């Protein structure tokens, strides 16, 4: 179970309404390398990890990804909440307005809905941890491209925080991989 803290892990400020940037940033909400994909991937793969420590690493990181999902949701909502239907249409979000008004939805930067095909659970912990390490690198790269697409210093500050977390998670998954490989070698499981 979870204990909910009624605050964000890190402040989510934006300078002004920016529909163009919201359209790109939403990929970290419902895109292939976004926070929803990350949270659901790790919180699902945890069950088939072979040791308690590696289960805990996936649970902890998956939980933190839920906190990041909240930050992204807050940012996207702040970037769009004051926009009129006409402004949304001009920003290429007319279809979003028709389907969702100003509500959030799990889509990537070009509007494709989130799908479970973004994530895998192979059952082989080495294969799953390689996917997780790759996911962290792809999310890190996505944050870099998003930083390149904006000049809003408040938004960049939060994106920088989230980007560094991806690097820390890569390190932890790498340590989990070492632990799994050591466990398998000691048990002579191949």
């Amino acid at each position, binding site marked *: 179970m979870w204990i909910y803290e009624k605050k964000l892990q*890190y402040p989510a400020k934006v300078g002004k309404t920016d529909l163009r940037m919201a359209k790109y940033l939403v990929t970290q909400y419902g895109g292939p390398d976004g926070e929803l994909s990350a949270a659901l991937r790790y919180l699902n793969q945890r069950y088939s990890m072979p040791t308690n420590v590696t289960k805990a690493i996936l649970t902890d990181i998956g939980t933190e990804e839920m906190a990041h999902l909240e930050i992204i949701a807050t940012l996207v909502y702040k970037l769009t909440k004051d926009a009129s239907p006409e402004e949304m249409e001009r920003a290429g979000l007319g279809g979003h307005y028709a389907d969702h008004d100003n509500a959030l939805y799990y889509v990537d930067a070009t509007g494709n809905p989130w799908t479970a095909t973004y994530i895998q659970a192979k059952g082989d912990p080495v294969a799953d941890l*390689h996917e997780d*390490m790759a996911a962290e690198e792809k999310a890190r790269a996505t*944050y*870099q*491209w998003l*930083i*390149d697409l904006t000049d809003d210093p408040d938004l960049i500050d939060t994106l*920088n*925080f*989230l*980007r*560094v*977390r991806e*690097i*820390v998670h*890569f*390190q932890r*998954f*790498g*340590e989990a*991989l*070492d632990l799994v*490989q*050591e466990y398998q070698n000691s048990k002579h499981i191949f």
Partner: protein
Amino acid sequence: MNDMNPIMLRLAQAYVPFQTYVNRWDPTKGLMMGTIFPELYRPYYGRDRRRG
């Protein structure tokens, strides 16, 4: 804990060095930087500088 001695490493297997405690920032600075560990902090300076 993996021994990074190349003789001990197996082919066709990936390794990330285990982090060992060196030092840390205070918690407030750790929150602002995204990590409490200075050796894990890798800032991004933008596409132009990345290619430069």
